């Protein structure tokens, strides 16, 4: 690692101040992605502003409108344990990484990183969730801007994510054998006004909504409704773990399984 300073604010306002002063600073969530990147010297911040001491962005509650609100600094294990009101989300959190990673990694950190194979982006997008930051509220559909890119600005911290709770939902992850990230992960969520389907792991542009499947499932929420649907391999990731065509094929399989599991 290159040398850097580390700050551990306990109040959000202090974190924001540290991130906005003249020093080249980077927020540190759970660090489960950033620390390996620092070890590989892929990042060289002057200062890390560690958010793990900021208790006000941790925790889970239900808003008046019924949305499940998860603090941006909440670790995956706590979401797994505390998001019982949204079982598909709790189950997704319970299968990110491994237990030790889940005890450190946070939802805010994961979303801000927007790894194209991460799980949370699929939940966010399929749920039409809202990202609340220190500056504003961002709709899921406006949040992701391609692989490792989001609409977050420098110094902007995810304080909360608000998930409208669907009638039915499920997330299925087909794992890449080595990293255990999603080779293809699909989150389906059925709301009163329609079904949303978000796909992670597959596309070179990162997480995306599969609109044809959404349309089909909105009129008939069953695996059979999307039986013949498929996506083209164009724009899908192709690597040693699977070709673009294989990923495209998996999207169909995994979506059907998610629909079936959602019941």
């Amino acid at each position: 690692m290159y040398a850097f300073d580390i700050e551990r604010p306990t109040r959000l306002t202090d974190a924001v101040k540290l991130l906005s002063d003249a020093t080249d600073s980077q927020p540190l969530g759970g660090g489960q992605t950033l620390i390996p990147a620092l070890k590989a010297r892929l990042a060289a911040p002057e200062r890390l502003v560690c958010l793990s001491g900021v208790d006000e962005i941790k925790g889970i509650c239900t808003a008046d409108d019924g949305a499940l609100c998860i603090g941006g600094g909440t670790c995956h294990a706590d979401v797994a344990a505390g998001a019982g009101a949204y079982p598909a989300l709790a189950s997704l959190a319970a299968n990110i990484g491994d237990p030790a990673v889940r005890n450190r990694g946070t939802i805010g950190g994961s979303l801000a990183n927007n790894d194209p194979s991460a799980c949370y982006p699929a939940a966010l997008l399929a749920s039409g969730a809202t990202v609340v930051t220190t500056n504003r509220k961002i709709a899921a559909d406006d949040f992701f801007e391609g692989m490792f890119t989001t609409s977050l600005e420098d110094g902007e911290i995810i304080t909360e994510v608000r998930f409208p709770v669907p009638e039915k939902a499920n997330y299925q992850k087909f794992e890449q054998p080595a990293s255990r990230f999603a080779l293809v992960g699909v989150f389906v969520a059925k709301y009163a006004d329609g079904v949303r389907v978000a796909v992670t792991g597959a596309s070179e542009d990162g997480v995306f909504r599969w609109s044809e499947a959404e349309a089909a499932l909105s009129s008939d929420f069953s695996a059979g409704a999307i039986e013949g649907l498929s996506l083209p391999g164009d724009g899908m990731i192709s690597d040693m773990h699977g070709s673009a065509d294989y990923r495209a094929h998996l999207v169909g399989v995994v979506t059907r399984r998610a629909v079936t599991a959602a019941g």
Partner: protein
Amino acid sequence: MPEVKMTVNGKPASGLIEGRTLLVDFLREKLGLTGTHVGCDTSQCGACVVHVGGRAVKACTMFAAEAEGMEVKTIEGMAEPDGTLHPIQAAFQNHHGLQCGFCTPGMVMSAAALLKDNPTPTEAEVRDYLEGNLCRCTGYHNIVKAILAASGQDVSKIAAE
């Protein structure tokens, strides 16, 4: 260089660190607790698993500064002061759950975290929980068996010794 203070295996510990000092390096190099091992640099092998605030974490993927004021437990803190092995350690020995020993500290610490949350896990739950702990020697057979045995379950029906 700032100072960090924490409690390690029930005793106060402190030392001067850099921002980039990882918890594992603090434990190994500043405190001489070399039982916590480093087997990879991408947070996958789990040889460095310790407990921070009662939870299993990878000490190679956490800065020492982040453990400020926390209770840290390492493999060196598992046995009784008189040397009596912790039941999980004893089960690993009794069921040959280790060979070269390098992954073992992390395995034991992960197993302890599992059994704290889930005192009688199924075989599948044990295997799933060990996703972040790699072992190259045992084929996992006797590790899983040892953890099941440590949970008080009868492992006599499990294939071979």
